[in-house]
Every structure is written in C-alpha cells, then in structure tokens.
C-alpha cells in the first residue's frame, strides 16, 4: 500500500497552503528526513521532510497550486518492493477530500512543529503555573528552545494569563508602537478630555485653493487647516498651553504637531512657530516633513515638543472623529473630510461643502468657553480663506 504524503498543518490556524515547489521528482528515492517540498502559508515558507523511506511514486499536486487543504494527499510514496500499479488504486480515491481511510503519513514540517514546542522542563513548569501557552512564546535557547528567560519575558509582557481558545498571531511590538501605547494610555488616564464639534463651510477655501494651484502652487486643504489653526491659537493663547502640575505653562509660540500616518504607526512632526509662517511656507515644510516621516528619516527634534496637535483624517473620507490628546499638550483638533451637505441659508435649503472639526481639550487647562472661542476663531479663518493668505 503506497504511503500518502499529505499537506501538513504548519500552524494551528493553517487551513490551506500553497505547494510552492517540489524538491523531489517521481522516481526519486527518499529516506527519512529528506526534504520533499516547500509549502507556503500566508505567514511563512517551510520545508516539509519525509518521515518514511521509499520511492516517490506520484506527485498529485502541481507546483504552485494554491489553497491545498490541510491533510489532502499531495504525493504517494512507494515502499520497497511495491510497483507502480499500486499507485492507481490509491490515486483514484484521491479527490479534493482529505482521505479518511488507511493511515495517512502527514509530512513533518521541518521547523517548529506546532504540536510540540521545544521547551525546557523548567520553562514548561513555569508556563503551566502561569497559565501561559508555549505556542505563544518565542524561544531564545539553542535551536529556538523555550527556556526560563523566555517565560519570564512573557510574564512581564502579559501579567494576566490569556483566555484559552481564541487563536491569534503574536505581533512583536515596535518601539514606536510602545511609545504610542504608553503616551495615549497616559493621556486617557490622566487628562480629563472634553470634546467640542462644529462644521466649517469650505467652498470658498476650495475655490481659493483651486485658484492658487492653477497658479502653480500645490497647496492642500490640510495646509489651510494648519494655517487657520495656528492663527486661531495665536488669537486664543489660553488654549496654547499645558498643565504643569501646580501651574499652567502658556507657550510663547504656536508649535503645531501634525499627525502623519507611517508604516506601523504614526508620527507627529512639528511645524515651529506656525502662526508666523505664510501658507506657502507651511505647505512646503509640511510636505517635506511628511515625506521624511514616511521614510523614517525625521530627526528627534523634528517630532518632539509641539504645543498643540492636529489630526486630519479627511483624506480617508472620515466625516468626523474624536482624537486623543498628545501629552503634555492640552488639545488636539480632529478634522474630517469636506462633504456637500444641505444647509439652511436665508430660510432656504442650500448645499455647502462642510468640514466637521472636533476639538479634544484638557479641561484642566481649557474650559468650554475657551475651547469654543478657539474653534470659533478657527472657523472664521477657514471660512474667510483670504485672511489665511496674509
């Protein structure tokens, strides 16, 4: 009876795999440990080795075949003395269904079998006591063996034992992700947030932008928003401040931190003294900062120490949202996309392009009235775009 080689399950969540490459051909002799094929999953490429000896009788799945279900027979091995006639009977029985009969010989994945992770007895003992699954732990010992320090590291990362059952993939935390997590957790825990929203009509702003860009500029809506927010903060200096324990620090200049999405997180490059910069200068600098932020080439002083933040998700079509304050600042303006919406004008319905803006403010520093004043000033600038050109 030929031996069935089946698609191995390389991870607990794997349901199908791609047969990337055969490493043997029909007729080749194989012995235990020989590499038979390379299997790709969405996570990794792994080699599968034979656990049996014999001769490759038939390859049932062509190279490059995707979505081969786990346990489907992919090849047949002839044992010593068997002839090829034995193959047909078995091969005919092979549909796309996993074989239910005989004793299939699952090919053994070469790296890290999911069912049994190499781990020291002490590591197993510690994991058992802590309710940790070894599946979730990366080993740092010889050959990837899980040893005591890996359990200790895992316990530090996750003090609460995970609920068993739910399958997940462990994603390593980058330094940026850690900073984001720490800062924003601190913000939500220590800063009494409150939120104010209003809509700005931006039709005139869009006209002004079109005219400017027809004249050869490349000004974005966000550049107008930066400029307007900077001027509003200059006009309402009470909002351009931070809570410093027993005093409030009111900043001398408006240093606007602008959130830029980058691979794996976000950074907030700062436009220094934004209130004294013209629209064209703001636009050029913002483009440069955003470009270099995406390339990961910002110097630390370029993203540290802003006095107020701006987060604009308009380019993603978000209508409105609340942002989390970036400590130690006292406020952040969340700007949505401009959408044509019905408005009442002189008692009649009209259509205007509205941009919803939400201020998140630290109530220790900014009271409702001050926040409202800031938002009002901002809207005035946005709705009279020529004032932004001065």
């Amino acid at each position: 009876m030929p031996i069935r080689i089946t698609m191995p399950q390389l991870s607990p969540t794997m349901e199908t795999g791609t047969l990337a490459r055969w490493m043997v051909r029909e007729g080749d002799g194989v012995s235990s440990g020989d590499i038979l094929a390379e299997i790709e999953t969405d996570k990794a490429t792994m080699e599968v080795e034979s656990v049996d000896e014999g001769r490759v009788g038939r390859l049932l799945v062509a190279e490059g075949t995707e979505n081969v279900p786990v346990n489907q027979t992919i090849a047949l091995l002839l044992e010593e003395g068997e002839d090829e006639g034995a193959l047909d009977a078995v091969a005919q029985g092979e549909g796309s269904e996993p074989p239910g009969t005989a004793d299939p010989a699952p090919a053994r994945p070469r790296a890290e079998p999911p069912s049994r992770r190499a781990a020291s007895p002490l590591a197993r003992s510690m994991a058992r006591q802590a309710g940790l699954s070894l599946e979730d732990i990366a080993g740092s010992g010889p050959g990837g063996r899980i040893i005591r320090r890996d359990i200790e590291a895992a316990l530090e990362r996750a003090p609460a034992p995970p609920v068993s059952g739910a399958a997940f993939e462990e994603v390593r935390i980058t330094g940026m992700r850690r900073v984001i997590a720490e800062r924003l957790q601190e913000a939500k825990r220590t800063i009494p947030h409150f939120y104010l929203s209003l809509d700005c009509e931006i039709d005139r702003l869009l006209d002004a932008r079109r005219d400017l860009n027809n004249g050869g500029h490349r000004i974005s809506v966000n550049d107008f928003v930066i400029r307007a927010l900077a001027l509003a903060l200059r006009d309402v200096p009470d909002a351009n401040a931070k809570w410093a324990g027993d005093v409030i620090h009111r900043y001398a200049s408006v240093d606007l931190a602008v959130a830029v999405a980058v691979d794996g997180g976000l950074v907030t490059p700062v436009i220094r003294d934004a209130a004294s910069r013209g629209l064209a200068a703001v636009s050029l600098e913002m483009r440069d900062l955003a470009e270099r932020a995406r390339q990961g080439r910002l110097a630390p002083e370029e993203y540290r120490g802003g006095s107020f933040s701006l987060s604009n998700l308009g380019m993603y079509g978000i209508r409105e949202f609340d942002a989390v304050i970036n400590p130690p600042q006292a406020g952040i303006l969340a700007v949505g996309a401009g959408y044509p919406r019905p408005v009442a004008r002189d008692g009649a319905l009209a259509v205007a392009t509205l941009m919803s803006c939400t201020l998140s403010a630290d109530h220790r520093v900014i009271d409702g009235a001050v926040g409202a004043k800031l938002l009002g000033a901002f809207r005035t600038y946005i709705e009279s775009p020529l004032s932004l050109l001065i």
Partner: protein
Amino acid sequence: MSLSRHDLVVLGGGPGGYVAAIRAAQLGMSVALVEREHLGGICLNWGCIPTKALLRTAEVMRLARHAGDFGLEVAAVGVNAAAVVGRSRAAAERLSGGIRHLLSKNRVTVVESEGRLDGPGRVRAGDATLEAAHIILATGARARELPGVVADGTDVWSYREAMVPDAVPRSVIVIGSGAIGVEFASFYRDMGAEVTVIEVAERILPAEDEEISAMAHRSFERQGMTLCPGTRVTRIEAAGSATGVTVGDGPVLSADRVILAVGVVGNTENLGLDGTGVAVADGHVEVNRWLETGEAGISAIGDLAGPPCLAHKASHEGIVAVERIAGLDHVEPLDRNSIAACTYCHPQIASIGHSEAAARDAGHEVRVGRFPFLGNGKAIAMGDDQGMVKTVFDAGTGELLGAHMIGAEVTELIHGFAVARALETTEAELMQTVFPHPTLSEMMGESVLAAYGRAIHV
C-alpha cells in the same frame, strides 16, 4: 624588534587563555598567545593538576594505613617526599607539553615573554610587538598576602612551596580554609603532619552550604586536625626553631611550617592598563557579561575578571569572549551561578548553584532533599560511608536551585547536576532518570526523591 599582525592576541596561557586561543583558531582567526612562564598557567603547573597528584598520593597513603580494614596486611608505610613531588611535577609537565602541542596543532603563535598593552590594538612582548583588533587579557591571579606577613618560602609557604616540600613537616598551620587551604590541610594530615587550620570566617569552607561546612568540620576533627574558625591572625614570627602564629590578642600557635591560603588577587599590574578604559576594582578587571572591558577591543577572562576563580570558569569565559568577538549567533553569557566548584580534600566537596540559605535569601520557597552515604551500597562497599548529597529545589517550579555534596568522589558526580541546571530540568525529570546501581550517583536520585518525601533507602 619584530612586528606581527593578528586577529587576536591573548595575554596569558592558562586555562582561560589557551582555550580562548584554540577556539579563536578554530574560528579561523590568526592568533598569538603571550605567556611569561608556563603554558597551562597556574592551574596546570602550580594548581589544580599537581595538587591532585599530591592528593592522590595522600589517598593511597590513607588506604595503606587502613589496609587492615580491607583485609590486607601492609607493613609500615613510609614517605619518599622527593618521589611524591616528582610524580606531581611529572603530571604537570606532561600536560604543559600537551598544551604546547595543541596550540601548535591549531597554528597559534606562542610568544614566551611577559606581555603588556602598548597603545590601542598593540601588545609589547619582549622584543616583539603584536598588533590585533582584539586582545584578551587572561593573566590570572596570584596568592593574596596577609597584611604584614611575607611568605618567605622557607618557614611561611605559599601554595607554591607547599606543593614541593623536601620532607613532610612535623606540624603545619594552614591559614585560610577555602578550597586551597583545606586541600593542603588534607594532604599534610594524610601524610602524617599535625595540622591546624585557621579561618577568619565563622565556619570553615565559608563559601559552601552551611551543612556541608559543618560535616567537613566534624570529619576533619575526627581525622585529628585542629580547626580554628572565627579566628584572625595578627602576627607571624619566628619562635625558636618553629614559626609562631599569633591569633587575635591572645595565644601564639606554633608549627614547623605555615601555609598561607587566604585567597587570590588578580594579576592586574604591569599590563599597561593605565590610560586605557580598562577598570580595575577589588583586585580584578571589571567586565560586562560578554567579558568586555571598558576599552573597545579588550576583553578579560578568568581569575583576572573576578570570582569564582576556577579554571573551568576561565576556559568557558575564553570561549564566550572569542565567540562574541567572532560575532557568532547564539552566544550565551556565562551563568556564574551554574558553575560547579570542586574541592579535593578528604572527604571531597562539590557544589553548584544556591546554598539552602542563599536560595531562601533569594526569596525562594524551597524543598530540600538529603541523602547520606550511609544508605548507599557502593559507598559501603568502598569503605567510604561518610557524606551526604543535598539538593535544593524551588517549591513552586521544581527548579533545581542548588546541589551540595560531601563524600567520596563527589567531584566526579557534580556534573550530573550541572547538566540538569544547564537543561533547566525540574525534579520531575530527575526523578525519571535511572541512576545505575551500584554507584554513588544513586544518591543523587535519592536526594531528589528525598526533597519530595519519596526517598527509598533512608
């Protein structure tokens, strides 16, 4: 004046230095080794090996003296001191020659001269100047001296004179009861000398588990030694034909010879460390866990890099330092708590990891197992039924925190627990391990069982 360039220069040819040199050569580096005296260092020439040869003589002597216990009739046993020392020296010389061969086989350039740093990446050794991107300092340690006491080599000995006696002195005072002190005490006692051991700490063998110390104390006393723990030596001076040792304000003890064994201090002088970033504290060079000093390109290993001052620790550090320099994957720093210590006095002592007290101090809730030699068939058959195997486990995880043994051949048993610790075994695997019968090793398994109330033979 010659100038040569290498990938690595090792200063010192002891068990740290020569092993580092060979490992580096295996990894394809061009290596020069600078040694001022003997390849193999103190360990091989004036330490571990020649003293083991002497202690073997002492063991044969002891057995001969107790031949009647074994049903043998042996006439009076005499000592030919020159032949005893000759055998010991021959063992050392044979091994030193072996090191020379190993270095040559691995194409390590050996420079026999005193070496010192001579600017960044440069070593001066006699007429030769050696340049290398990496330098490993492995110059070892020497006997520590007592303030105001000079080991003159005739009446007051250091280890060096103590291992080449012209004759066995009638009486010996050993100052210091660490491994070196008790080994000499044991040797001279077995050879027939009156032996007194003075120790400043409250117990002899102060680095060992307290129970082991106490058992050694009782055993040494039964053998006729005089032990003075908690005693400080204030003066040593000639007292007629003998040497007088004043302890505290009080009595003067006297003996034919005094052996100083009060620890070692690193050979940090004359290395050219001034003006480099290499820091020296408490008599040793400060290193990080990769054995790197404060000066880029310079590592330090072995006794020079601090305690425990053990040859096997030095050798392993040599390998770690070299593999780190070579940038190999998976290099592991040495866990200094997993280094076994062996003392070849009679009875032998061997230990690894935390003592029971240290384990408790470290916050562990412990389970302790003890198994006596009295319960072991092989020990009884050997006529050596005094001793104990003690194991200390973390009560929660089953981690083997430490093992402490005293008795016949325990220095040959401790590696079993060293492997157990390196593999992070718990009591469960040790209980599943089948120890062969009849061997002394059965006591290791029984001690583990005893920690969990399951010992069979006690």
